[in-house]
């Protein structure tokens, strides 16, 4: 008989593995006030990573108010996507910077 803790550990591990096997990190670069790529497609559980190459502070702010991510100069910020939706976003400080995330189940 397999000790119970091993089963639990195995379960936990397989859970972790299945998440890491499926969840992706999608990178969006910010360079000279442009989100690139401007549009990305993702699945629930994926993470978006904004890489800010500018010397300026930016944000990724959803127009539907679902999220608001601060992205410091020369830093990276992440957002876990937990809802299926098409979300338009912009930078609060530079409103002509625009992007879109398409999240599918």
């Amino acid at each position: 008989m397999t000790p119970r803790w091993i089963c639990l550990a195995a379960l936990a591990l397989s859970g972790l593995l299945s998440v890491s096997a499926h969840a992706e990190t999608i990178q969006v670069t910010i360079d000279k006030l442009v989100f690139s790529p401007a549009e990305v497609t993702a699945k629930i559980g994926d993470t978006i990573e904004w890489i800010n190459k500018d010397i300026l502070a930016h944000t990724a702010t959803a127009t539907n108010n679902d999220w608001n991510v601060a992205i410091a100069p020369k830093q990276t910020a992440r957002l876990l996507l937990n809802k299926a939706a098409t979300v338009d976003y912009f930078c609060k400080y530079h409103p002509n910077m625009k992007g879109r995330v398409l999240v599918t189940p």
Partner: protein
Amino acid sequence: MFVRLSTGLAALFLLSGAAFAQGAAKPTDPQIAHIAYTAGQLDIDAAKQALAITKNDEIRAFAQDMVRDHTAVNEQALALVKKLKVTPEDNDTSRSLTKQAAAKLTELAKLKGAEFDKAYVANEVAYHKTVNGALESLLIPSASNAELKSLLQTGLKIFQGHEQHAEHVASALK
């Protein structure tokens, strides 16, 4: 040479209200650094005046953006001149910009409420237009150091964004 041509430039400025003139003497890197830094600082001063006077949230947010961005760019500019061991050199263009900005601060200080907001943002549109035009046609082409040129190009992108943002805020006020 620069002084003599700049006198002509100053005369032009009196006539047209523009601190920059096309086809004037090509500024040197120390002068370009001084002009760019001054232009940023003047916009920070204008924003600080706006923050002290305005009661409009959108104007406040815009002015805060100006302080944040121009401070960041100017910090970068200071770090660069230090690295390049360049001493920014005062010049007629910097002086006209400063003089013009001081006059504008005095003029705006007399206004209140919506009148102030409109005048501030209209001046922000005009100011960024002037500075961006000068960056594009005079300062960037004249810069000889590659790093200075690249910082000016980044600055231009940022300030073009400010110009559009200011235009957007101006049209929302109407």
